[in-house]
């Protein structure tokens, strides 16, 4: 192959620089590409942080993952059955104490839990606080609407408070479990507790591909940014870019999935999740189980005492 016969003329000439002077251009905010790459970096940072937390020598980190899964899931079920806000607040305080004992930064823990609550529960509970949905005594009048008094009722606010504290406590328990346990150990614990093999397989694969695909997306967008000479990506080209990237990523994901699967099969993989860590029950695990049972019995007892 001769270089001179196939190289187009324009490639052998100097390109006129777009802006040879060092003038200051219009500053622009980041578009889809910048947001995606910084989002990917943030996710990796968060994962690193979670791994650091899981590696601490706190209370929850020292427990057998099977004990942790069973105990915290048990508390989750009890939480779902509680009917009084003060009891739920007590349980929530318990999760804060567990977080502190597990060397978790409380500000981070509280933020991580309460960040999602307005999004997931706010939409559901807000209408229920109005007297048009939940009848009762209006404690916060909001005016009139077509001749009807509109306001927040005591019953509605109590129901909303109940839902919010229950969701906050439940999410806290799940966050405690996931952030204090390395992913591989969590999957192995679930498998040891007879969780379906298919579920473990899907969860394990999803976690593995997450980072591989994250790298693929970052590479694609960084390569795109390196070739972006003109100004900011507008909304239309941003949408086209996202659609094109999704398509390309789908193809890459399929190839990658096949390669990873072959690499696993080549090393004797037959669908079972196994961990190098041998789980061992110790005195601390037994004490934790007893403490959880005592907390659950106390919470249910007080809840019943306060009546339905």
């Amino acid at each position, binding site marked *: 192959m001769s270089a001179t016969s196939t190289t187009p003329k324009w490639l052998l000439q100097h390109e006129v620089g777009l802006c040879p002077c060092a003038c200051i251009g219009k500053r622009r905010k980041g578009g889809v590409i910048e947001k995606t790459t910084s989002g990917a970096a943030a996710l990796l940072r968060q994962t690193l942080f979670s791994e650091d937390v899981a590696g601490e020598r706190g209370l929850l980190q020292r427990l057998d993952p099977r004990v942790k899964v069973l105990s915290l899931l048990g508390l989750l079920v009890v939480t779902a059955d509680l009917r009084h806000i003060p009891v739920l607040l007590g349980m929530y305080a318990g999760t804060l104490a567990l977080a502190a004992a597990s060397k978790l930064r409380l500000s981070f823990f509280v933020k991580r839990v309460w960040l999602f609550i307005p999004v997931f529960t706010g939409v559901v509970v807000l209408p229920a606080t109005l007297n048009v949905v939940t009848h009762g005594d209006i404690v916060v009048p909001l005016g009139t609407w077509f001749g009807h008094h509109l306001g927040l009722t005591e019953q509605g606010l109590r129901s909303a408070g109940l839902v919010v504290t229950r969701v906050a406590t439940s999410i806290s328990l799940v966050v405690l479990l996931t952030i204090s346990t390395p992913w591989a150990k969590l999957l192995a614990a679930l498998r040891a507790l007879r969780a379906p093999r298919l579920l473990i397989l899907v969860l394990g694969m999803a976690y593995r591909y997450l980072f*591989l695909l994250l790298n693929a997306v970052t590479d694609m967008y960084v390569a795109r940014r390196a070739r972006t000479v003109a100004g900011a990506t507008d909304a239309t080209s941003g949408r086209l870019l996202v659609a094109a990237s999704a398509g390309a990523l789908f193809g890459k994901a399929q190839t990658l999935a096949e390669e*990873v699967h072959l690499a696993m099969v080549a090393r004797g993989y037959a669908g079972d999740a196994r961990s190098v860590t041998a789980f061992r029950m110790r005195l601390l695990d037994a004490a934790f189980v007893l403490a959880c049972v005592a907390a659950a019995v106390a919470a249910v007892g007080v809840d019943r005492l306060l009546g339905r």
Partner: protein
Amino acid sequence: MTVSDADMPTADDALLIVEGASYSYLDRFPALDDVSMSVQSGEKVALLGANGCGKSTLLKVLAGLLFPDRGRYTAFAAHVTEDGLEDAQFARGFRSRVGVVFQNSEAQVFSPTVREEIAFGPLNMGLERDEIAERVDDSLAMLDILDLADRAPYQLSGGQKKRVAIASVLVMNPDVLLLDEPTATLDARTQDWLIDLLVELNAAGKTIVLATHDLNTLDRLADRCIVFSEDHRVATDGPTHRVLRDQDLLAAVNLVRAGSRSPRLAAGWPLPS
């Protein structure tokens, strides 16, 4: 060990035998066309050829990961078929005896930590935990990656990932090592280290089959070369020194430019007669 023409293996005493294998991806893109080859125990064999000639596909066939559309593959005196590998006992025996290092370490290093990654194979082999822990520590030390043991794969550089991928295969102590472009993407020092390791393993009796188009390291990495043409067939099969001397053949299969000399000849290095 230098292989002379008289020492060339026969199919009778071979460990791995491929007979008339053809394979096409998606039934449309041919990768192997009537390929026959064999590998004896303790050999160092290189699969040579230009990009896309079918080397990696043949390695996957040898690893029991792809199965020829036509022809057959025999390993350790047993036919290797998709159906046969569904037998748990046969699969376990085969997988523990044949280790494969993929070209793309990214795909091979998928566990949450390096330690988990290296333990993946032995765990699937059903070894005792104490033995697994000992083997993993030994492998980490041998590949000089002890400090990476608790790191996640996505925190590693390309060279480090390659070391982890090699450790994750060696820890299973396979009889046969299949390596796809083992020296590609490695810096000079790591390349030297890897070649020394493969030579040492071969001296200890391991059979090594590698796919490459890097002629510079070939005399140390292989005693015998199986050269693929761009039409996915075997162009020749012979001792490394003879293949490297055959400039017309190397040019015909697109491994060197017509009129140029092989890297070893160009460098003025002597070739064994």
